[in-house]
């Protein structure tokens, strides 16, 4: 049968190996023994029900920003601007929820998320438009748009959209807009929906005509145009979709976790999306794996301080090591000589 599913990217394993190695060596260096750090990370992320719930909650934005980066990469565009799209998406969702308080919950939640997504898409549009009309590289423009978004949001939340305090935050969103955990024990649903979305995107890319067109554009733009595919159109659509995903990530953070927008909202989720995507070589169907890893690391940072007295910044070191291993793709070189890294 000529259809092949995605294989587990070897990148991911080499990255995990690198992470474990780093944990072990730094554990020994700090005098806790090689396994102390690994155990602490495990306990901090999955050691108790509360910890597991926190980890799952942290997965959602990583999944969405990871997917945003991964789909854009499918058409050879690198969306570094998730951070800005996420920030403005979150602010827009919070503002909308506050304004449309009177709507019933079943309408308010999806509409707020949609507004967040729309603003995220809007914030990604200048990048792709500039690329198409002036040839500006999207990495530069999205990076600059990040700064503009951050300061714009700060201005808005300190002024017209804030709650009047000097804290730089909006008022708490109405309870009707709060995304409540549906499952028992307070397990959030958003991460599962996120995984489902990733799988749908993967299926769409590999078994749908439009997904096929996107794939072809990404691999050989000239060939795509030769065979009548509107390459420019797909680049625009996919990039806007990417922005929308990042904006939605922000909206869900507001609706499900923080219940308000405050300045410096994104805790680096936008950039971690890049890591999440490249850990599995941009395969949407595998994102759950890398998001799980990244979320576990993120969730464990406080615990590291409590249990071992190690600075939470240690997690950043490990993340960096993991990403480095993924980008170098050593395993891909050793085990899959001459094979394509991209499915």
């Amino acid at each position, binding site marked *: 049968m000529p259809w092949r599913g995605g294989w587990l990217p070897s990148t991911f394993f080499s990255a995990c190996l690198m992470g474990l190695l780093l944990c072990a060596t730094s554990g020994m260096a700090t005098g806790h023994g090689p396994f102390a750090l690994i155990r602490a990370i495990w306990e901090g992320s999955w050691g108790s029900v509360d910890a597991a719930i926190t980890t799952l909650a942290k997965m959602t934005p990583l999944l969405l920003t990871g997917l945003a980066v991964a789909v854009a990469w499918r058409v050879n565009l690198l969306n570094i601007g998730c951070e800005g799209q996420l920030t403005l998406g979150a602010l827009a969702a919070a503002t909308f929820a506050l304004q449309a308080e009177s709507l019933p919950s079943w309408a308010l939640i999806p509409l707020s998320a949609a507004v967040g997504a729309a603003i995220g898409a809007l914030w990604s549009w200048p990048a792709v438009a500039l690329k198409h009309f002036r040839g500006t590289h999207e990495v530069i423009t999205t990076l600059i748009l990040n700064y503009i978004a951050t300061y714009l949001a700060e201005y808005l939340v300190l002024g017209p959209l804030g709650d009047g305090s000097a804290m730089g935050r909006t008022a708490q969103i109405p309870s009707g807009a709060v995304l409540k955990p549906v499952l028992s024990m307070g397990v959030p649903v958003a991460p599962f929906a996120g995984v489902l979305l990733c799988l749908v995107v993967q299926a769409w890319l590999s078994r*749908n005509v439009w997904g*096929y067109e996107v794939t072809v554009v990404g691999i050989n733009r000239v*060939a795509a145009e030769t*065979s*009548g*595919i509107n390459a420019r159109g797909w680049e625009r659509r996919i990039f806007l979709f990417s922005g929308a995903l990042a904006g939605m990530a922000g909206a869900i953070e507001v609706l499900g976790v923080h219940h308000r927008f405050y300045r410096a909202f994104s805790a680096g989720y936008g950039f971690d999306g890049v890591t999440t995507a490249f850990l599995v070589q941009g395969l949407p169907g595998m994102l759950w794996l890398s998001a799980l890893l990244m979320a576990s690391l993120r969730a464990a940072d406080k615990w590291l301080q409590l249990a071992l007295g190690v600075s939470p910044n240690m997690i950043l070191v490990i993340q960096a090591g993991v990403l480095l291993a993924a980008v170098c793709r050593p395993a891909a070189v050793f085990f899959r000589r001459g094979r*394509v890294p991209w499915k």
Partner: protein
Amino acid sequence: MIALENVSRRFGFLWANRGVSIEVCRGEIHGIVGENGAGKSTLLKILSGHLQADAGRILLDGKPVHFRSPGDAAQAGIGLVHQHLQIFPQLTALENVVLGMEPKAFGFLRRKRARRRCGELCEIFGFSVPLDAPAGELPFAGRQQIEILRSLYREVRVLLLDEPTSLLSPPEINRFFRFLVSLRLQGRTVVLVSHRLEEVMEAADRISVLRRGKCLGTFVPREVTVEELAERIVAGSRVGDEPSLSRSGGEPSVVDHRKEGKPKGIVFRMIHARGGGSEYEAGLNDVTLEVGEGEILGIGAIVGNGERTLARMISGMMPCREGSIHFLERDISSLPVWERRELGLRWLPANTFEEALLPRRPLWENLLMGHHRPLASRPWGWFRREEIRAWGEACLAMGDVVHGGLGEPLESLSGGNQQKLALTRVLAGSPRLIVMEQPGRGLDIRARRNLWERLGRMSIQGVSFVIISHDVEELLSCCHRVGILFRGRLAGVAAAQSVSVECIGRWMLGLT
């Protein structure tokens, strides 16, 4: 000098080479001929270390050698010039040449020294490559010279050439063969793979024939005729009946579609078109031409005279700066490529491997491009797998493509079969006008004949063609009308059956 002993190589269930034994002497030009997929390229790749033989051995100067990589072979003085050129388009010609063996000091490229050495080589062999131009902007002949220079720069003793003349125009081919002779005078050895029998007969000292991966023997050109050789290559089919589509002409017999009388309506019209052009290729300069329904219009040109620009402008890859293009009574000058395609205008680029195919993706994905929409369910567009498989198999069978399954990557096909796949894809469905650049590239005699027969049948059904080729005699024998481009101008258009070869020759050189 080099001896291959029982070399075998298998891809899946397909034997690309099976017990091949060939001996190449020092300072000779050794030709290797065979059908598409006969294993010629594989043999060269084994010799140059890109592939490893499953069995058998290679003797170099009597000593068995084992090349584990192209680097090993280069060390031993063997260099390969690929059928699909391996060029870095962003780097300059000079950088492309010295790549991998850069003269350097403290990690910096010593440009002066590199340039002096390259300049010397160019002078010795009569190449005229602009060394500072980005390689991607050079015409094919220039890029090929870069790759040959790369081998010479590394002081190779044995130069392996895979289909070197497939994209060269006649004067360039002559220059190329003079170059081969100069190599021989220096005592270097050349192994030459080509489909053009006459060329090989003329240039080579000895010729080995491959068929289905086996070597059928080595011949001296003086002692065999082209017909005898052709018979060995395709054995099993009656060669005598086949029209000769090769360089030296012969009586073409595939012209019956030309007797169908005058073309009916005008399908395509290009009026005073200008545009395109770079330092290395002429842009179009006031070109006006018409194509009738069911007409095959051949466009011939010496490389770089605007023939690529013409194809790209018709297909929409390049904007038309002045003038207009009309297709089916509609002004399409400003339509993008995909809209033109939806109207029924298709384009087969010259470098199919780079411009029309996805080398690492499975065959079915390659085949589907451009035909994908009708094969998906509505309205959500999910692929109907069984239908795609059936369609793909039928399509490949129609194009006579030898393959190992729809799921195999395109790279696993031989060069000729890749071209056949691209051809069958562009011909499938219901096109109205097809622009083809070098459609016969890499095809053997039989495949070429099949192609022209298919074009003839389609033209009778009303499909029009614009065929751009450097093989003018082939155009003359198979097209309704032939036009010649010279420096971006249409030097002349005439009915193929009435125009003389001398007249065409004058047009090509810009004489009136």
